[in-house]
């Protein structure tokens, strides 16, 4: 099945591509941020800093 997008195909394709790009950037940012925070918690844990509850700093479900 071929899809014909007519004379304004570039506008349609750009719209979907931009939406995909922004969503990928959002997901990437959240994943990288999670890795960064857990890495920092691990470093704090290694240096002996623990939470008041005496749990490990990296004790994140």
């Amino acid at each position, binding site marked *: 099945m071929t*899809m*014909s*997008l*007519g*004379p*304004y*195909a570039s*506008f*349609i394709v*750009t*719209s*979907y591509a*931009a*939406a995909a790009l*922004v*969503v990928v*950037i*959002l*997901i990437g*940012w*959240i994943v990288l*941020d*999670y890795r960064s*925070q*857990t890495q*920092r*918690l691990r470093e*704090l844990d290694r*240096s002996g*800093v623990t*939470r008041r509850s005496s749990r490990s*700093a990296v004790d*994140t*479900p």
Partner: protein
Amino acid sequence: MTLIDLANPTRFLALSARVLPWLAAATVIVLTIGLYQSATAPDDYQQGATVKIMFIHVPNAWLSMFVWGVMSIASLGTLVWRHPLADVAAKAAAPIGAAFTFLALLTGSLWGRPMWGTYWEWDARLTSVLILFLMYLGLMALWRAVDDPSRAARAAAVLTLVGAINLPIIKFSVDWWNTLHQPASVMRMGGSTLDKSFLIPLLVMAVAFTLLFVTLHIAAMRNEILRRRVRSLQMMQASQKAA
């Protein structure tokens, strides 16, 4: 588990870790169905294939307002109940809301050029959505600018609630003023004016983008809780060194 139990960040982290994979899977499934339906939807008799832009423009436009609504409720939680997760929820939602608003503006512009003959017009709907986008950016800047998280939370909550005035202005701008933007065609008195062949893919895409928001929001909230945990541990470390 009651809702109040979720007020505990550790419990929220535990529950969200279990829920997130299911939410992500549901998002992918509904988005795939929505994209297929959007691709196979018929051309509009006036707009031709450009009507396909509607399937991403409208969900993003709805979510741009919905996210601010979520942030407004969270702001009430910050100011009235001082809920421990309220500011976390508002702060985590802002960049996602800004991204949806940006996409609503961009895809609207790309739809407007072939249909209206212009990318941009300073009419009430477009201008009020642009103001919403600038308010998202302003809020994000405010959270970054104020060092004390509790002061930043209160200031951001007030700004969010003041900014909520813009939501009915956006919604009813097409009725109150003479705009280039078309009036409401889905959420209106008397029902939708859209044919089912357009309405169903649009609603499926709206559900997909809402699921996407919920998934990203919960993940971003988890990050924000971890960031605050890092901050408090670093402060504890600094005070231990100073002692």
